[in-house]
């Protein structure tokens, strides 16, 4: 079989298909070939339905063998490499899931992996950020199979199509028995998901304590926004790790990013500088966050936030 098609690894948590999947498919549509979406795990019907309506997907494979239940890298990577060897491209979102699996897949196939692709320049040439986004690198791959993780903030999803693609069940259980999941802490949230939210309200060390960080949550709820945090705020225990935005945390690019009490260390800026509008609230006029902010508000956040709450209550009501 000639290799000329694209395999995309879907991301879901068994309950919902992650928006990152649609965006990765969007990236895949810029490459030549037909797209096969691979779903593993034990996805609910809602996941399958959403997947079947992703525009541009030609076929869907579902392997719900029990060894893929917990998305263990050793097993899933073996499956993806086995299926992927007949494809020209293998793509996944550059999430912790995709980053865990795809390098292992590339190693099994003896090829390189290209991380966090932000632009597809030609069928073998890609742009990606390095040095915390301070440098952009254009690389050309000579590999017969090109394995890419996609920075999903750089691609927009297409609206779901009306027609559904049939789902084909496969069963290739590669159970390496090297690892098992013992437990997980995945707090359920009522707020939008950080990486796909339209508005993100983010807090830093300036919030001073876990209790005072609630101010961020209140503003976020008023705006229907997701919550983010700087590494300093997470390290200080104001909020848990899954909210960290930055070079080593999540990368976000919402329409509005409100940075409160965040100094703007390089690592943090790397995760949010592609936001459309950035508002910075900080008492230090020399904070580096102001260099990238569209609106710079110098002042005491403990005075500004309550006033902003009041203002929003009035103004958003009127709208």
């Amino acid at each position: 079989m000639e290799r000329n098609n694209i395999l995309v690894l879907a991301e879901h948590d068994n309950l919902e298909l992650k928006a990152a999947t649609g965006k990765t498919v969007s990236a895949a549509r810029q490459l030549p070939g037909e797209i096969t979406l691979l779903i593993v795990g034990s996805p609910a019907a809602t996941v399958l339905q959403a997947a079947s309506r992703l525009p541009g997907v030609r076929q869907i494979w579902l392997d719900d063998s029990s060894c893929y239940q917990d998305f263990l890298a050793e097993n899933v990577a073996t499956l993806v490499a086995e299926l992927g060897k007949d494809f020209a491209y293998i793509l996944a979102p550059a999430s912790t899931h995709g980053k865990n699996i795809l390098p292992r897949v590339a190693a099994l196939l003896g090829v390189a992996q290209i991380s966090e692709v932000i632009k597809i320049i030609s069928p073998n040439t890609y742009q990606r950020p390095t040095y915390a986004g301070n440098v952009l690198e254009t690389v050309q791959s000579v590999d017969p199979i090109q394995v890419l993780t996609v920075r999903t903030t750089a691609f927009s999803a297409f609206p779901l199509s009306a027609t559904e693609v049939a789902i084909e069940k496969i069963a290739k259980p590669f159970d390496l028995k090297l690892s098992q999941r013992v437990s997980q802490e995945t707090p359920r949230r009522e707020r939008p998901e950080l990486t796909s939210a339209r508005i993100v309200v983010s807090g830093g060390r300036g919030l001073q304590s876990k209790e005072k960080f609630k101010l961020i949550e209140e503003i976020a709820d008023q705006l229907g926004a997701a919550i983010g945090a700087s590494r300093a705020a997470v390290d200080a225990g104001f909020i848990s790790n899954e909210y960290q935005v930055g070079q080593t945390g999540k990368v976000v690019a919402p329409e509005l990013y409100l940075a409160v009490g965040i100094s703007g260390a390089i690592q943090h800026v790397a995760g949010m500088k592609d936001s459309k509008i950035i508002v910075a609230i900080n008492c230090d006029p020399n904070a580096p966050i102001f260099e990238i902010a569209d609106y710079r508000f110098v002042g005491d956040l403990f005075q500004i936030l309550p006033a902003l709450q009041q203002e929003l209550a009035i103004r958003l009501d009127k709208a």
Partner: protein
Amino acid sequence: MKCLVAVKRVIDFNVKVRVKSDGTGVETVNVKMSMNPFDEIAIEEAVRQKEAGFISEVIAISIGTLESTEILRAALARGADRAILVEDDATRESINIAKILSCIAKREEPTFIILGKQAIDNDCNQTGQMLAGLLGWSQGTFASKIVIQPKEKTVLVTREVDGGLETLSLKMPVVLTTDLRLNEPRYMTLPNIMKAKQKPIQKITLQELGVDCKQHLKVLQVESPEIRRVGKEINSVSELVDKLKNEAHVL
């Protein structure tokens, strides 16, 4: 049970990186270089596990020019027992680094290999996963807690993932990659820096290892991203809400 720790020499995280005017790379002349911060965490973890009696020997390894010796000395000063430098003056892709490390692993037969989850220069986040794949070992990436269970021959690893945390039980031997909150690396003390000078650094060439480092990627262009325009000063919350509604149209 031996532990191999891979360390990389990178531009110090405090340096503002500048792209060379010809677009072939970044400026490294007269630029401060340091150990990749995630690798410092990896060394610290190995040394702590040794101090707790779970590891017998910590071996630091780096791949690079003779200048990487300074990074290995730092690893030794932080408590590694000995070091290996694989002499190589090329910039290698993660897949080739993983191949070289897998060769060393076959020679040294460690039970644990710990790496930083990513290097802050290329931000690839690949080498540990690739190494585990090449060796056919279990992998625990983005670790924020590591508990070695010698009797069960397993390692409990708590991982920082997008949804929160998950804990895996991994069969030994294992490849682990470190996240930021795994530990806080200790400072190097003068006596330890002096002691490190007596510790051995073995040098090996790629030829001796017999690794074929085929090039997979070609860097065509290196550039700086667009700079955002300078923002507007805001003096009141009503002005802020106004601008967001009527100028930026995001509320």
